[in-house]
């Protein structure tokens, strides 16, 4: 008989409102799917998470490494550098404010070391993607401090000219089970970024996440990003333990931040 205690390891998204609706951040041991229209900031969130997972333990982060699997080629290193620098600035600002009385904790991180701790894989076909997911098991066993795997985007290679739909469903089902197993066994977060497609429901066309109904069951949590007027919003579509809620966020030159707040300080939990 074992009792499951919730040792929550959460990765902050750097946006307070978003963290609040997520219960603190992205959960380790769970597979989270983030989907939205092009241009809404999915890759930005992915990059922000890859940087935030490396925030050291003293600042409330996990001090872990990240794996970034890029299927579309949208990973821009210059942008990652920008976000990493902003993150370090925020951390030193934080340490300034809260440790004024004690000796200042020097922030020993350098943007280059943040870049070093992101393992980047570029896949160009669905077979490569599946082979990579199979290989990840061995990879994470060797690099035990990987705490997040980001797949951007998981649907890209499965959408165009896939003749055998049954094969696609099977492959996707297997891949999602493997990712679930990785998340559970190695206690890391898996974040999948997904594109949208239109669906014909009851006479009208609606936007839904790509890959169909069977895929919608392959994640633990799902967040949908959408435009509300001029603002970007995130909405929790599926979660076993979180309430449905939506929160605004914005994409700035420093990364993902709150939309209305003028303060650039990251709230450390």
């Amino acid at each position, binding site marked *: *008989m*074992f*009792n*499951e*205690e*919730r040792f929550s390891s959460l990765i902050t998204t750097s946006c307070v409102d978003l963290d609040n609706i997520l219960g603190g951040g992205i959960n380790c*041991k*769970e*597979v989270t799917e983030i989907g939205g229209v092009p241009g809404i900031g999915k890759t930005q969130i992915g990059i922000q998470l890859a940087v935030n997972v490396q925030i050291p333990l003293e600042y409330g982060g996990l001090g872990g490494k990240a794996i970034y699997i890029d299927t579309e080629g949208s990973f821009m290193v210059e942008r990652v550098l920008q976000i990493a620098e902003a993150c370090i600035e925020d951390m030193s600002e934080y340490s300034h404010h809260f440790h004024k009385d004690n000796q200042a904790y020097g922030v020993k991180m350098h943007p280059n070391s943040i870049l070093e701790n992101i393992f980047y894989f570029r896949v160009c076909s669905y077979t490569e993607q599946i082979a990579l997911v199979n290989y990840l098991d061995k990879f994470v066993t060797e690099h035990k401090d990987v705490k997040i795997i980001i797949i951007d985007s998981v649907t890209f290679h499965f959408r165009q000219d896939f003749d055998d739909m*049954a*094969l696609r*469903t*099977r*492959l996707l*089902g*297997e891949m*999602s*089970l*493997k990712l*679930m*197993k990785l*998340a*559970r066994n190695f206690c890391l977060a898996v974040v999948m970024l997904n594109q949208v497609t239109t669906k*014909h*429901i009851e006479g009208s066309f609606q936007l839904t996440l790509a890959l*169909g*109904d*069977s895929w*919608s*069951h*392959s*994640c*633990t949590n*799902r967040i949908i990003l959408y435009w509300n007027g001029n603002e970007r919003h995130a909405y929790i*579509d*599926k979660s*076993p*333990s979180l*309430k*449905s809620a939506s929160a605004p966020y914005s994409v700035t030159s420093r990364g993902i931040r709150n939309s209305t707040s003028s303060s650039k300080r990251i709230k450390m939990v």
Partner: protein
Amino acid sequence: MAPLNSLEKEYPLIDANFQTFCASHAIYSVEDFLLHDLDALFASASNPSTSHRLKQLLSIIDALHPPLINGLQLMEDAKQNKHVLSTGCEGIDALLGGGLRAGQLTELVGPSSSGKTQVCLMSASTFAKHKGSVIYLDTGNSFSPQRIAHFVGQSSDCVSGNQADRRSLQKVLDRIICYPVFDVYEMFDMLHQLKINLTSEIVKSDRHVQLLIVDSISSLITPILRGNGPQGHALMISAGFLLKKLAHEHNIAVLVTNHVVGGEDGNSKPALGESWKSVPHVRLLLSRDCGGNVCNISIIKHPAMASGRTASSIRLFV
């Protein structure tokens, strides 16, 4: 069916002489043996030891089939053992005539985020609160102790935080065992292990397993269906039979979840296909109003209730 020479270890009476005798009648496996005309075999058994062995073998085979019982015995068994237990949600209980019945396989079908996992978690917390043991096979890392604590705290009107509550919550959580499974073969291993544990264990009154949840069985079976031949299909049906057998023999209520796929006219239909339709005893369809907190449940199939009965305004997402 196993070839005869592989059974030698288990049943020493099937030794080399016996196998030669069988081979002379073109019997190489258990299947051949069962299909063969047994009277003719007896007649051709030349020495008494062979015919003696044949008789022993037939008595072993007789002992393997399930016992024949009549209707009266079935009803007594139903009254004494097959209790109906509440799921914790009044709407669902009213719909099902009391709740989940031990010995039955109940299936929850619904699109994503319609509340299937919530119903599973709620039933688990209710069964555990009433001192039953719960086994939860989780394929999507969705088991949430936080949510169980919420359900437990909700139905007992105490404020959480004091010592006694935490201890009782701890006891409730102790009774729910959660196994992550990511493979249909892992699930089979788990179920076989459970079968062995249940048949050999002496029944302890409050540790008896009362509820088995597989969330979700469709994500385990979809990767193997329609692939390399009929094996996937066979595995799915044998999984269904194994679950039903466990339910009946050990008086467990079994709850599984399934998802929907697109049908022909764009309507959604439950996944896993036509053959799976006849496997569960009770099938319930869940749907959720867009973004609302309300879940609608309707009966697709039930041995005792009319299908099409619905219950709505079940607030699961508070």
